[in-house]
């Protein structure tokens, strides 16, 4: 009984983590950018969906769409206002670009977080779920919303897989992650590929944020922990490896759920952190990473 509960809850949380981390790892793989405003973009999506549905009353579906749209805009803003100027700047030495992107996106994330706190307060907000009610799965009373979350996450990840592996644009993205210079030699504009990737990222982060808002609720305080969890999942799986992140998301998700149910919810993040440190020592490039 409890085993099934852990299995079901763990799956939903893991799927959500996977969706959140996929966009993050995609950007790193293609353009080498670690976007530390990730958590802020997810929370912005959730809060926008909440505001649209609960305050303006446009309905749950339109609210969710607005949330994803806001995340898309925020992702483009991050790219054009912060990341691109740093990448193009001639005054920043090449070997330090990484730390500048990290600092820049971190500050950008704090700005988004503070704006959300200013206009919508720090209170936790729960987005109205699209499907309501409870259903009995293997003897466990499960909210339908939890099943919906898991299904949407899996569908979106499958769509992403199709997009990357089966379409021309996707193949260009894949090629850019392998060899950016080779792609430019083939006559493809690298900036266009980056824009596509940031767009995909925005949509993924938006969906993940809105689902998170329906499933667990968010507040401006969740920004830091969300970024940290995406970062650790991605490093655990190997930076830039999408399949690695998927595996890592499930490892972390189940580890947290197991700890929360069997030991104490207060300790839920500790085993995952220990595992991360352990993996870094024996396999610094992560589970499926290339050096």
């Amino acid at each position: 009984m409890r085993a099934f509960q852990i299995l079901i809850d763990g799956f939903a949380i893991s799927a959500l983590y996977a969706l959140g981390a996929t966009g993050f790892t995609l950007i790193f793989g293609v353009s080498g950018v670690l976007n530390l405003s990730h958590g802020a973009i997810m929370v912005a999506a959730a809060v926008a969906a909440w505001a649209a549905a609960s305050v303006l009353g446009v309905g749950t579906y339109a609210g969710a769409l607005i949330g994803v749209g806001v995340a898309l805009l925020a992702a483009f803003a991050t790219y054009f206002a912060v990341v691109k100027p740093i990448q193009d700047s001639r005054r920043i030495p090449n070997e330090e670009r990484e730390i500048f992107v990290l600092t820049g996106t971190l500050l950008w994330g704090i700005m988004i977080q503070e704006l959300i706190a200013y206009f919508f307060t720090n209170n936790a907000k729960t987005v109205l779920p699209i499907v309501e009610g409870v259903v009995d799965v293997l003897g466990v009373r499960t909210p339908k919303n939890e099943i919906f979350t898991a299904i949407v996450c899996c569908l979106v990840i499958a769509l992403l897989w199709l997009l990357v592996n089966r379409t021309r644009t996707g193949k260009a993205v894949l090629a850019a992650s392998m060899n950016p210079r080779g792609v430019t030699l083939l006559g493809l504009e690298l900036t266009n590929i980056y824009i596509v990737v940031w767009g995909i990222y925005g949509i993924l982060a938006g969906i993940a944020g809105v689902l998170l808002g329906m499933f667990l609720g968010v507040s401006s305080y969740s920004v830091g922990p969300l970024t940290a969890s995406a970062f650790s999942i991605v490093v655990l799986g190997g930076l830039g490896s999408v399949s690695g992140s998927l595996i890592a998301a499930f490892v972390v998700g189940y580890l947290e759920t197991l700890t929360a149910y069997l030991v104490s919810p207060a300790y839920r993040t500790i085993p995952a952190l220990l595992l991360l440190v352990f993996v870094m020592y024996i396999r610094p490039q992560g589970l499926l990473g290339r050096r």
Partner: protein
Amino acid sequence: MAGFFTSRLFFVSLALVIVAATLPLYVSGYVLGLLTVAFYFGVFAMAWDLLFGFAGEVNFGPTFLIGVGAYTAGILNAQFGWSVYLCIVLGALASVIAGLVLALPALRVRGPYFGLTTLVAVLMLQNFIVVFADLTGGEIGLTIPDVITINAGANYWIALGFMTISAAILYGLSQSPVGLVLQASGQDPVQAGALGFNIVKHKLAAFIVSAFFSGLSGALLVFYFGTASVGTVVDVAVGVNVIVSAVLGGRRTVLGAALGAIFLIVAGEFLRPTGELATFIVSAVALLVVLFFPGGFLGAALSREARS
């Protein structure tokens, strides 16, 4: 090095320190209290700059070193009633040990991977403090019975003196041959190693020095506040402030980091009337500096001097 004592930077710093030392004679205790905290923060930022600017190690967890020093000193004083000075020294030593622990992964992994390890170290420390709440005071914070002094002027002079001495040592170190080797090994470890320098030894030394000053400053700060809490010395947000200070002031300048820290804390106070927007404005200014003056305040000033 000899050229430094005749350089403009030296005279400007000397004049600034002298002016700062006379402040208790004519400003209020409130301003002194603010600057006292800013000076301790300045040492955090300079210690961080030594690791990042020179050793090339992206340390996302400056608060791991600070927090270990601060909490060790605080716990020893609160639980065993040992004297303040002994606790401060032991806090700094505990921080050095923490620095060695942090150095172990640094010798194996690089760049973002190391950055994440340091971030995890902070989160672990935070969890540890909450789990062992009996010892550490948990989320509420640890109340410390003793303080160094309650005189605002004396506290201010201690902080100023401590920051000046730390700045002199850290800056001297960064300009010494050791500092140059460190810089070389941060930029290209393979080539620096091929030139016959022992990179491992130099990096370990950088971690020890950085940890020592972070821990010492953290311990002093705790005895100034009379309390140690996650929100003031461990939280990731505190670490972010340290990093932003160093980048704002100009990385790889050491002294700039202290300027950045003082600016950040004073600006935060000036913007207090704007309420919740204060952090937003400070972050926005910091982002603009990062985008348009990547060298930071001091970096921009120094390069203009070099050009003229």
